């Protein structure tokens, strides 16, 4: 778990550096080596590893727009993920999806760019497992800002009424872009929404990877044993803006400082040291993680950019008759020109 957490943290530090290249001094979102928006998850690693370390490749995970820590914890192909983020041809989505839309079918991982959008497909993965009598489970990650969204609430009901092997994991980082939790929900503990669906709800505080691991073990075990879904909420902290370039003018400095002070990685290190794990061992793991990340980034940057014409492929797996891979010629009408 520690190795995945430091991999995710260092990965985001490196992405941040790369992302800002060419976008300074005046931030221009359309410049630099990494296209589009970039939503980083520094501070949320405990949620990802605590849950995903119970999962196998055949278990499904759907991640929201802030996906890197979850993807890494689930075991995504880091090189192809990075190539995707850089918009390269060998990326997981051949450069068509980008960082919010990472799809790795080898490990049943799917991303999504719209709030709560991953919840119904996770229920669907659970439904498929149940219909086929398989013991795989599905986990949908979402932010605390997503718990007001219809897709989430409808998915809870659907999973509950069909006893589906699904775990919904709310990563509570206190902020939905600029909106603090207390201004968008009167329920401070999102897991309480489980009560409305006759489903177990559990909340884990304090950015505690070990506690999350234990709670997730219960929930995932329950799902695997065909005892139905669980709603978990875990407290994490958003150490950065909503996206790169977010000036965070809405956020009090004290809140940023508090988020930085409550670090899940530091907490895990303290726990491990208390268990007698040597600092040297942790250093080795961290170095290994950094080497892996550096290697992935260097590899990705060497990858070819997609041919512009590639844009026309993959709309359909089975293109309809008459469809072409290239842009249609201009059609003339109304004259003999």
């Amino acid at each position, binding site marked *: 778990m520690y190795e995945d957490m430091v991999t995710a943290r260092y990965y985001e530090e490196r992405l941040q550096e790369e992302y800002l290249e060419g976008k300074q001094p005046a*931030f221009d979102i359309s410049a630099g080596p990494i296209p*589009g*928006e970039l939503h980083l998850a520094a501070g949320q690693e405990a949620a990802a590893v605590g849950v995903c370390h119970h999962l196998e490749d055949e278990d499904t995970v759907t991640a929201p727009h802030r996906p890197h820590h979850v993807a890494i914890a689930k075991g995504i192909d880091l090189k192809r993920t990075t190539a995707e983020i850089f918009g390269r041809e060998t990326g997981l989505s051949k450069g068509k999806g980008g960082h919010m839309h990472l799809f790795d079918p080898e490990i049943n991982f799917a991303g999504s760019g719209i709030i709560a959008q991953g919840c119904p497909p996770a229920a669907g993965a659970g439904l498929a497992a149940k219909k086929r009598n398989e013991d795989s489970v599905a986990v949908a990650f979402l932010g605390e800002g997503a718990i*007001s969204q219809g897709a989430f609430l409808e998915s809870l009901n659907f999973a509950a009424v069909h006893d589906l092997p699904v775990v919904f994991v709310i990563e509570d980082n206190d902020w939905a872009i600029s909106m603090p939790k207390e201004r968008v929900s009167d329920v401070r503990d999102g897991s309480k929404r489980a009560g409305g669906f006759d489903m177990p709800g559990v909340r884990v505080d304090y950015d505690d990877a070990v506690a999350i691991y234990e709670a997730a073990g219960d929930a995932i075990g329950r799902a695997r044993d065909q005892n139905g879904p669980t709603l978990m909420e875990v407290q994490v902290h958003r150490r950065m803006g909503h996206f790169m370039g977010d000036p965070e003018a809405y956020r009090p400095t004290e809140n940023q400082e508090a988020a930085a002070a409550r670090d899940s990685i530091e907490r895990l290190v303290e726990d491990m040291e208390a268990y007698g794990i040597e600092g040297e061992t942790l250093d080795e793991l961290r170095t290994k993680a950094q080497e892996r990340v550096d290697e992935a980034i260097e590899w990705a940057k060497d990858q070819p950019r997609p041919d512009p014409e590639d844009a*026309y492929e993959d709309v359909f797996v089975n293109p309809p008759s008459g469809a072409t891979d290239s842009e249609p010629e*201009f059609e003339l009408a109304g004259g003999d020109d």
Partner: protein
Amino acid sequence: MAQEERDRRVVERELTMSRAMVEAIAHEMREDEEVFYMGEDVADYGGIFDSTEGLLDEFGYDRVMDVPISETAYLGAAVGAAQAGMRPIAELMFVDFFGVAMDQIYNNMAKNTYMSGGSVNVPMVLTAAVGGTYNDAGQHSQTLYGTFAHLPGMKVVVPSTAYDAKGLMHNAIRDDDPVVYLFHKRLMGIGWMPAPGGPKTPVPKTDYTIPFGSADVKREGSDVTVVTLGLHVHRALEAAESLADDGVDAEVIDLRTLVPLDTETVVDSVRKTGNLVVVDEDYRSFGVTGEIVASVADEALENLDAVERVALPDVPIPYARSMENEVIPDVQDIEDAIQATR
């Protein structure tokens, strides 16, 4: 609007499109207490694309409302408040999120007037950011002009300049019907997303309205009529200027509203030039380009020598820059289309 009228109103002061929109909203909020704004990140943040920047300071949280991420609830609530006689402006952060709440938009907002036999009306404005050109992939880059214009019951507005943005916003808020007001991110004048030169224009300080259904001839010409909207007005103007050196005199028409659609201005222009190019950042099939061509064919087929369509091919908008540049029409694509009518 006639050029003389525009000249009369020209003042020294220039505004970005976002400042012009906000000025109109603030004016209407001062004049009418029933006007309020709600959406995600519209209060403290001032709108992700500066669509509400500064409104919170003057009007407070009661009238500039941040809402939970629950588009079905708050867009539907805007419909309810509008039916109760208020004049809500509700913002959908990215138009691509329309699917989350489409039922409230197209089954309630758009149809309640008709289905009530005209006994209720829905005087609300639905604002949304549209457009690509900054590599944000398929769920954050669409324009969807055709989607909203296709479904009956919504007026659809797409400004391309600060002057138009303000006048159209005044009209939208005062309109007794639901108005979908789509602003292109690239035109807003946001610090982190540089705009082309065109959208920043002189804007009168006083209020004024631009009636819906009045397309604007942004450049007069005699050889070919280029019909477009939003960001692509500026790309078409650039193409026209570039071709002027080659002796091609293109007329550029900015539709400004899709519903109602000003076919008269377009048809008059085609009768003059004989050639039509339609440019759209939305998908090609079943969209704006087909509609304009069909409208012109209905009324002026005999005047039509050549037609070209420039639009997004029927693919979701890709992330990588090379592919996005390929699918979104650029100045060269427009020049090529104009040349093809020659």
